[in-house]
């Protein structure tokens, strides 16, 4: 039986000992299986025994390829999703951003605005309860973020697109601070950066409006919200939900058939938002999470078992080259695009983590000499709108004709009155929200022990 080894995303070689990353990902896979077994057996995950796992794991839609390797399997990229945030586009036109060249309805400025709305309402404090400001790219939530570089005249000369989860850097920092420091130096151009600049010396906590606190970064650990990643940035993803563990979690909770409140199995006639509200694997307001979940669930319905393919990662898949031209009507040659981390750009099998778009040296052009859909480029997010993201799964066809076990929906969603925004819930809706999918669960509190991987234990 072949031994499964988890390489680093995009086959990058950052870890001095690659086993460290493999071990982290292997633990993630074990954790997913434990949670799924718990949900099948209606048990608390802490009470799941090794015997339970040995008995139930082979029936699950999700494969832990390290503990229970399967022979063969085929690897495929799932359908890519648009990298421009769906929620931002859907909220346009943005009245707070009046029309300007390159952004008539305000969506491009809205996408680039910094803030901390990626966390529940509150403020960040340290262990001494001092308020700290840690704004990030809080609207770029489709597993890709970007940063602009401008010349002395303010012209846009480069845009850097990144799809690397911050938790990868957290793990790397745990093992090798120097490499993280060096990557920061390289990608920010600031040679004076030290590891301590990236550390949350006194921790980071979210203090909610009711006064309660939740740890975001442990004291002394790598701070994924450090501001060097924002300005001059960009090194890795910053939005709270843009993590590898979120991807793994989503793949996990989507790997099991779901039952509605009336006991019927969800096979057809459900859209991707509703499915995500049922499995609670992510944010239904994005393109990414509902579509990833739906495609993973389709594998289960089609009689496959799957796992996230090695190397697990989120990758910049492709660009709509045909939508962008120079203002003299020429298409961009491949020398405009540089894949800085990862490999396989523009092949259909891209595992690119970091991509740069800039005029070829010596061309005398800037990115503002480009037009996207006939509109002069003024904002980096006009170019981000050209890109798609994808991931890969490895799947195995079940030989017994079964589809595996099924478990009840974990929850449902409330919809904001007057808008399309969905909030996941266990059945209760706050004032100003109404239940969007009442048929998924019986009511508040009806979902005690079901598949919901609450938080990664290894990637933080």
């Amino acid at each position: 039986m072949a031994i499964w080894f988890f390489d680093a995303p995009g086959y990058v070689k950052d870890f001095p000992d690659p086993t460290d990353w493999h071990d982290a990902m292997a633990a993630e896979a074990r954790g997913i299986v434990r949670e799924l077994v718990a949900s099948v057996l209606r048990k608390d995950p802490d009470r799941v025994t090794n015997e339970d796992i040995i008995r139930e794991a082979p029936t699950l839609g999700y494969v832990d390829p390290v503990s229970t390797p399967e022979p063969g399997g085929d690897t495929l990229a799932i359908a890519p999703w648009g990298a421009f945030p769906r929620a931002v586009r859907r909220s346009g036109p943005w009245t707070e951003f009046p029309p300007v060249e390159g952004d008539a309805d305000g969506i491009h400025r809205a996408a680039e605005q910094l803030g901390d709305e990626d966390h529940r309402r509150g403020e960040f404090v340290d262990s001494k309860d001092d308020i700290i400001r840690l704004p990030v790219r809080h609207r770029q939530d489709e597993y890709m973020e970007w940063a602009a570089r401008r010349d002395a005249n303010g012209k846009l000369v480069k845009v850097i697109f990144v799809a690397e989860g911050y938790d990868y850097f957290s793990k790397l920092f745990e093992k090798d601070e120097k490499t993280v420091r060096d990557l920061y130096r390289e990608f920010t151009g600031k040679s004076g950066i030290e590891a301590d600049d990236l550390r949350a010396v006194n921790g980071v906590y979210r203090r909610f409006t009711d006064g309660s606190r939740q740890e975001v970064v442990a004291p002394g650990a790598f701070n994924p919200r450090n501001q060097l990643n924002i300005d001059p940035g960009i090194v890795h993803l910053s939005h709270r939900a843009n993590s590898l563990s979120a991807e793994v979690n989503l793949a996990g909770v989507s790997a099991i058939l779901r039952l509605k409140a009336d006991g019927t199995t969800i096979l057809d006639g459900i859209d991707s938002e509703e499915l995500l509200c049922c499995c609670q694997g992510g944010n239904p307001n994005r393109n990414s999470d509902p579509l990833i979940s739906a495609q993973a669930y389709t594998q289960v319905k089609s009689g496959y078992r799957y796992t996230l393919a090695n190397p697990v990662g989120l990758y910049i898949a492709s660009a709509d080259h045909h939508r962008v031209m120079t203002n003299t009507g020429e298409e961009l040659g491949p020398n405009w695009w540089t894949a800085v981390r990862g490999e396989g750009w523009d092949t259909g099998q891209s595992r690119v983590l970091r991509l740069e778009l800039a005029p070829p040296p010596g061309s005398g052009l800037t990115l503002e000499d480009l037009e996207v859909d006939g509109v002069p480029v003024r904002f980096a997010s006009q170019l981000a709108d050209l890109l798609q993201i994808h991931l890969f799964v490895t799947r195995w066809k079940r030989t017994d004709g079964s589809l595996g076990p099924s478990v009840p929906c974990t929850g449902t969603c409330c919809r904001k009155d007057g808008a399309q925004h969905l909030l996941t819930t266990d059945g209760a809706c706050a004032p100003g929200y109404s239940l969007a999918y009442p048929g998924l669960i019986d009511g508040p509190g009806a979902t005690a022990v079901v598949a919901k991987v609450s938080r990664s234990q290894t990637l933080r």
Partner: protein
Amino acid sequence: MNGIDLEFEEIQGNVLAGFNTNIEVFIGLTAEPGKTRENAEWLASLAPHVTTVADIRELRQAMKPAAIGGYGAQITWLNLGIASTLLGSIREDLFVRDEAFTRGFRKRAPTALGDRTDFKTWRVGGASSLDALLIVASNDEAAAAQRAAELISAAESAGFACTYRETARRIRDLEHFGFRDGVSQPLVRGCHAGGTVGPGYFVFGYERERGEDVYLPAIDPSNFLRNGSFMVFRRLSQDVEIFRSFCRAKAAELGATVPGLSGPHLEALLVGRWPSGALASVDIGSDPGPDPNENAFDFSDDPSGYACPYGAHIRKVNPRAGPKDVVDIPRILRRGIPFGPPFDQDPSAERGLAFVSFQTSIRDQLEFLTSGWMNSPSRPAAAAGHDLLVGRSTRPRLMKIRRPHGEIDVSDDGAQWIIPTGGGYLFTPSRSALSRLLEPVAEGVKWRAEKLIAISIDKVHETLAMLAPSRG
């Protein structure tokens, strides 16, 4: 009905009801310099004459030819659209926040639609701007011609030049390649029986999704957009001989890997349907005939594209429950009609499709479907290949036929059977908005597009600085 009261007596009929007549005369008008006032006066004078949804509902039966129970002969209907430049010069209080509409068709077409033919060769909207478009519909060609002539004469007296006129004729609901057109249309909530798609996707002033606030991409203090819609007109020439001979030759070439593949079968796979409208499949080699449930499928049983290829036109523009890269599938109301004689009658004549669609966001609906999906080799499904039927690309185009044992590439070998020959982006106002076209604009709310759009780079930088929160 469904809690939505659409103002049918206001909304132009071609938007929600569709003319569906045998004859439609397209009249393209170009505004002469310095004649804005005359242009506007004449356009406003047409308000009582544009055909509304209510009119069509009342006269649909009467419009039918006498042979099938109608009175047909003397009835004509009118649909009118105004392009951004002319509209902006008349209504200075209106600022539309849809860059597709404001930039206009000719500017957007090369990238957002892939129409890169030399615009100077276009039949419409190229060398001469398309400032207003009239569509005169009838089931009687003489009546339509007479009405069109009257309108052109009046327009020319009001500072317009008629720079395009074309009579389109329905061919038993077929387009020129021989396939039924318009099989699948969104059913609009509040308008069509069983409608599920929100009217706000097609008409301004209504919700798009249930309970959602009204979508209004404009600064519009006089409520001019209400009950209006954006119209896209795209003139697409079709070369039937090239299309059919390509499919014949390619089918023969692929016969070794797809046994039994014929030219008509490959044509059907490119479309996604057979000429009868039945769903096409790699495994079924001939047209099974009309299917009464021709839209009762969602590709959920074909997630891998083994039966109907991902690149098939109908799957590209509506992936339904199959793989896709956005949650919200854009929908448009299509009102196209063929122009030119059927191929069998005169093979050497020019022919094609006068494509017309209605939507409230040109960028997010028609352009997304065209540029994001039809013209893309990798969307909406991974490795989808191009939409060889209609999609455009400057790179080699490939559609993939997926089989369990592997993929088969179908290259277009550089053949071009669709040739873009112009078009326009227009606004179709409501009847009352049209009548208010010359209503005085309060000085305080004049927007003048150049004030908003022609800002300096310094302003962009000011805006960017505002985006970043202060540090400290």
